[in-house]
């Protein structure tokens, strides 16, 4: 049965920038429907790993498979997005001169033909879906405002909303709660847990309180490879992890 195959499979992946090994023999397996938290000090390679999965960076070595047997190293960013991998960037990246609603509209799942978009009208179902997402990310009141005017936290949420609109199989969420208040952080954890009920998710975060709230398996990266993996309690008790974090 295809369900037994992992949604994401990285094996022996390495990539260097000008001789500096940012990812070094990294292996990681994510099961279907799993949510995984990734931690690690600055420069550990967390974002670079997402770059590799989404086709932004080509690995020098190693295998990257999605949904069983799709070799991601053979596809580009747009292909990979259409295969069902969505991404929220570390620095929230939304279309600033578009309204909140239009940001979601551009992300909404569907055909990606530029020419067809010329005649594309919003269907009632799409309008309903947009309204639903806007409610989920608490931006209904701001739907007609330009994204540029949102607070940092709201931009983070808008980008999560864009992920929801894309409805990918696998979500890569890079530092979703940076710049959020404690209350917002709690909300975000709740939202991600809800999303994780129907999707596979990788969350990168430095905020340990947040990671604890997620309550999922944790992988700690260091210098481009996996240092430790297990429950948060197990990982944070791991002597090597403690050294890496204290040694900074």
């Amino acid at each position, binding site marked *: 049965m295809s369900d037994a195959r992992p949604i994401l499979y990285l094996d022996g992946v390495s990539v260097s920038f000008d001789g500096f090994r940012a990812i070094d023999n990294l292996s990681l397996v994510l099961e279907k429907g799993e949510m995984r938290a990734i931690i690690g000090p600055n420069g550990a390679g967390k974002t670079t790993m997402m770059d590799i999965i*989404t086709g*932004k960076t080509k690995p020098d070595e190693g295998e990257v498979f999605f949904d069983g047997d799709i070799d991601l190293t053979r596809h*580009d*960013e*747009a292909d990979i*997005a*259409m295969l069902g991998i*969505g*991404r929220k*960037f570390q620095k929230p*990246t*939304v*279309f*600033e*001169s*578009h309204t909140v609603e*239009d940001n979601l*509209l*551009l*992300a909404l799942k569907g055909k*990606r*033909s*530029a*020419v067809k*978009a*010329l*005649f*594309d*009208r*919003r*269907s*009632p179902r799409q*309008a309903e879906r947009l*309204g639903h997402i806007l409610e989920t990310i608490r931006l209904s*009141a701001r*739907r*007609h405002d330009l994204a540029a005017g949102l607070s940092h936290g709201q931009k983070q949420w808008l980008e999560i909303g*864009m992920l929801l609109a*894309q409805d990918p199989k696998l979500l890569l969420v890079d530092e979703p709660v940076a710049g959020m208040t404690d209350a917002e952080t709690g909300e975000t954890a709740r939202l991600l847990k809800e999303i994780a009920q129907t999707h596979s998710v990788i969350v990168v975060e430095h905020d340990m309180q947040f990671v604890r709230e997620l309550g999922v398996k944790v992988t700690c990266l260091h210098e481009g490879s996996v240092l430790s993996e297990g429950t948060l309690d197990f990982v944070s008790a791991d002597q090597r992890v403690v050294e890496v974090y204290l040694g900074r």
Partner: protein
Amino acid sequence: MMIVRALADGFTWRVAAAVLVLVAAAIVVPVLNLSVPAGSALHVPTYAVTLFGKYLTYALLALALDLVWGYCGILSLGHGAFFALGGYAMGMYLMRQIGSRGVYGNPILPDFMVFLNWKQLPWFWYGFDHFWVAAIMVLAVPGLLAFVFGWFAFRSRVTGVYLSIITQAMTYALLLAFFRNDMGFGGNNGLTDFKDIIGFDIQSDETRAALFAASALTLALGVVLVAFFVKSKYGKLMIAVRDAESRTRFLGWRPENVKLFAFTASAVMAGIAGALYVPQVGIINPSEFAPANSIEVVIWTAVGGRATVVGPIIGALVVNWGKSWFTGAFPEFWLFALGGLFILVTLFLPKGIVGTLVEGWTARRARRASATAEKDVEPESFGKDEELRAEAAE
């Protein structure tokens, strides 16, 4: 029905006003020229009709550039090339219309070919004695060049300054090529001495008025088309690509296709502008490919306001009207004035004339709206309205 709806959606009052003014001009100006006696204060002289007809084709060119630069972020410094190619296609038709009335009286060969001792019409001149063939070429040649050029440039992810430079190189290469006599386009002198167009005397007042009207109506059509583009989901996509190209890839879009479509459509528009320009000025020669021409188009657009539909038209009209006045009064200083204008606009009116006006107007309206909202009105009601409209559209 869907198309009508889509068109109607794209109409802001500015767009509607521009279309109305252009259609009115297409009717009123010819009437004032042809039916009002020359002595009357209301009479529009033919030279003015032709001059403004020419400006309208420039405005169409600026509008075409705005589509790619203003909305899609592609700073093309080669749009003059598409304009010139459309112009040459029209010029070839007009050349063949001369027939045996040329200096050498050759019924088939244009004068310059006889002069070069050519015995046969080159293959690429075949069919240009038919207006419809020429009309297709006016669209196809610039469109095809833009498609092929864009295909390679956008696919290899050439952007920003590098793209601008290669568009300049493109128009420069064409300039050099068209200068050559053996290219078969009249070399240095280009194509000129036209006699008539679809059977009408090209010099007559009636024809000139008709060409003016055609230019105004075509521009109106261009405005409608660009407004439709911009308002559609594709228009939002263009802006998304302009502002955050790589982000669109991670949503599954292919920015290279978004750009290629805009670039090709824009080149076709520029070609049509060139085709309307040539019969009004009576000549097309390689100087139309000069890199400086393409840069001037950028200045018109910037002055009027990029990423607005009406801005480039106002910019083209104002700057060219200024140019006509200036080159009459102080011919040596025009280039300095143009450069100075560009610097001033960049520094003090980065959104151009129309962009600045729109911004001021929107800000005032927003202030007023928030003032009333504080009193009683529910701010959400606008959004509800739009949703209902979206649903009704299906």
